[in-house]
């Protein structure tokens, strides 16, 4: 690499900041875990962890909270990625939480396991004694997240209290906690959706196939397109049809909307995101539409 006036591109600056965050957590906390959804943000986290710790191994395992309603393409992608990087994967299953009576399945055509996974997540964090959990959340995603710290403190009920956030001047992160408490750590805090895609393109990272345009049986509900799947009941009047779509976010099949798109390559996806006029959550996530502060409320309970 040529020094080039000793200046970093903005993606290099973001990358360096994120790597620093990974290493701080590894050094200051005893039992971190990396939360992995199979989505674009979490696979960028994996690449950043590789850059932080290779040729060593990750000083933490990877955990996927599996709702059982995932896209099969994403599960297949997850297993291939874990195989390639040779790190340890823990799967925490929402179905197990349901079977154990920890949570009750929602019923009806709009049922979703989105909210249930908070219990599975917190149970798994407690069972493994994790004191830090890396997540892929970004501040540009949502208003409540715009105010969240990089090190986000959770009490022993997993709750976030926006009024009691620790000041975070410079890059001096405070990860001190008591037993039973934990910190959520967000290395991508300062990245935008477009930054993530540009980084994926720059690094040549593989992403799950559902991010690219494909033909799929979908139906329309509340102005969004959902995949036809065994996990969703149709309401009277909803007619499945075939469309060329892609996904902007990876969540459950029950609450993640597809967008009409013909973007079949990384370059086309980057161009589409650069030109979009709607946020990713606004366009594709039913879970954020419940109330004005839906994300803040779920985060208070311990959500990702």
């Amino acid at each position, binding site marked *: *690499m*040529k*020094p080039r*006036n*000793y*200046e*970093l*591109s*903005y*993606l290099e*600056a973001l*990358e*360096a*900041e994120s790597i*620093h965050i990974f*290493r*701080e957590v*590894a*050094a200051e906390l005893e039992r971190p875990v990396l939360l992995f959804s199979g989505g674009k943000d979490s696979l960028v986290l994996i690449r950043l962890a*590789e*850059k*932080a*710790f290779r*040729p*060593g*191994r990750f000083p933490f395992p990877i955990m996927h909270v599996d709702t059982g309603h995932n896209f099969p393409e994403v599960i297949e992608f997850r297993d291939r990625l874990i195989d390639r990087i040779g790190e340890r994967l823990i799967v925490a299953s929402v179905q197990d939480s349901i079977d154990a009576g920890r949570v009750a399945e929602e019923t009806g055509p709009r049922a979703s396991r989105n909210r249930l996974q908070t219990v599975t997540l917190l149970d798994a964090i407690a069972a493994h004694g994790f004191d830090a959990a890396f997540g892929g959340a970004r*501040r*540009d995603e949502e*208003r*409540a*997240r*715009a*105010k969240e710290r990089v090190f986000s403190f959770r009490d022993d009920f997993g709750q976030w209290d*926006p*009024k009691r*956030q620790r*000041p*975070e*001047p*410079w*890059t*001096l992160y*405070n990860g*001190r*906690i008591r037993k039973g408490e934990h910190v959520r750590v967000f290395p991508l805090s*300062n990245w*935008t959706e477009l930054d993530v895609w*540009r980084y994926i393109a720059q*690094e*040549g*990272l593989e992403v799950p196939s559902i991010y690219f345009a494909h033909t799929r049986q979908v139906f329309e509900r509340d102005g969004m397109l959902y995949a036809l799947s065994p996990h969703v009941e149709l309401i009277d009047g909803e007619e499945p049809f075939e469309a060329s779509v892609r996904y902007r976010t990876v969540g459950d099949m029950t609450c993640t909307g597809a967008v009409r798109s013909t973007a079949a390559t990384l370059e086309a996806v980057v161009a589409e995101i650069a030109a*979009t*006029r*709607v*946020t990713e959550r*606004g*366009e594709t996530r039913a879970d954020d539409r419940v109330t*004005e*502060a839906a994300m*803040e409320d779920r985060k208070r309970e311990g959500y990702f």
Partner: protein
Amino acid sequence: MAGAATNGRAARARTSELLRFATAGSVDDGKSTLIGRLLHDSKSILDDQLEHVMETSARRGDGYLNLALLTDGLRAEREQGITIDVAYRYFQTERRKFIIADTPGHEQYTRNMVTGASTADLSVVLVDARNGVSEQTRRHAYISSLLRIPHLVVCVNKMDLVDYDEAVFEAVVDELTDWAARLDIGDVTFIPISALHGDNVVERSRNMPWYAGPPLLYHLEHVVIATDRNLADVRFPVQWVIRPGSPDSPEHHDYRAYAGQVAGGVLQPGQEVVVLPAGQRTRIAAIDFFGQELEAAFPTMSVALRLEDQLDVSRGDMIANPDDPPVAGRELDAMVCWMSERPLQAGARYALKHTTRSVRAVVGELEYRVNVNTLEREAADRLELNAIGRVRLRTSAPVLVDRYRRNRTVGSFILIDEASNDTVGAGMLLHASSA
């Protein structure tokens, strides 16, 4: 494993630099309108966000498009109609990516302002043209200078309400220029604007032909920030030791590298360095980055250094240039911004985190408190929440420090209350000695 990264680094993104800037202000001075306009005119507010703001403004009966709703995301903020915490916003133009730390302006949120300002390259301070320089303006300028933000932009806003009168603008320039001379701010720029009508925000105003300078966005895109960094003094706080050494990876059996983020200087293979606090000299054998060997590392790169000699180096140590190393100090003299409801008092003990090293510190003498509105020094025996003062601290072990004005990373620290684990203070080093 390194192939993709090596190739990828050559393919640079179009925008070559990142500018972090802080804004401070309250609802009345038009800060939210200004940010809203920057985001809107750079097409960073998307349709569903705008629609949401319109709906919410209408439901609340604001009577105008309340762009503060874009950033005031917390329930408590929306209920009380105030900005409580730092909100981070992002936008991008052809030339640069911008991170805005949008902070509340009232005195009771000084700690949030300090947090937002701590990493900023530039600070935007708003002055209401009708009222001239206010206490709040002076406080914002003081905090910008205390945090050593290299560039200050004073936007004289609401020029439309004073008939775009040059004399009003010049009066603000004169008054603040005199005052700023006491503050030691490197670069001060004044821009007459109307955030509401967009004058001199993104487009040059046709209402103020007497103003020869650029509009705000042009200034943000072009201000030179590369020279703000300290490229002279090598400072590399060791964060993490990479030592694969596992039986199943024989190829890395003897591999040992010191990972960290460059805090100052330019590092190159072959260069002589000193490892502190031990004081051993060695040379950099290689600079590793994900399987690649780099020719140089500079701020703010996160890399891993291999050294020529087998030394005992661990987290909290600092790799520096031997000619001008940081001071290994136990007696610290610092400006401290207090961030806790429980006041700072002489005799109190805290954990002190500095770069990658944590020690204990006991508060000695409190020299004075700064009246952040008048800059006067006042005698004080405690620092209350949001107060700023000059404090002496003694640490349990040496910390490897520079003065804050020389290096913002190596000259800053936080204080942590060991009972509550809260971050209670932010410190900027003035002087350190080993005594």
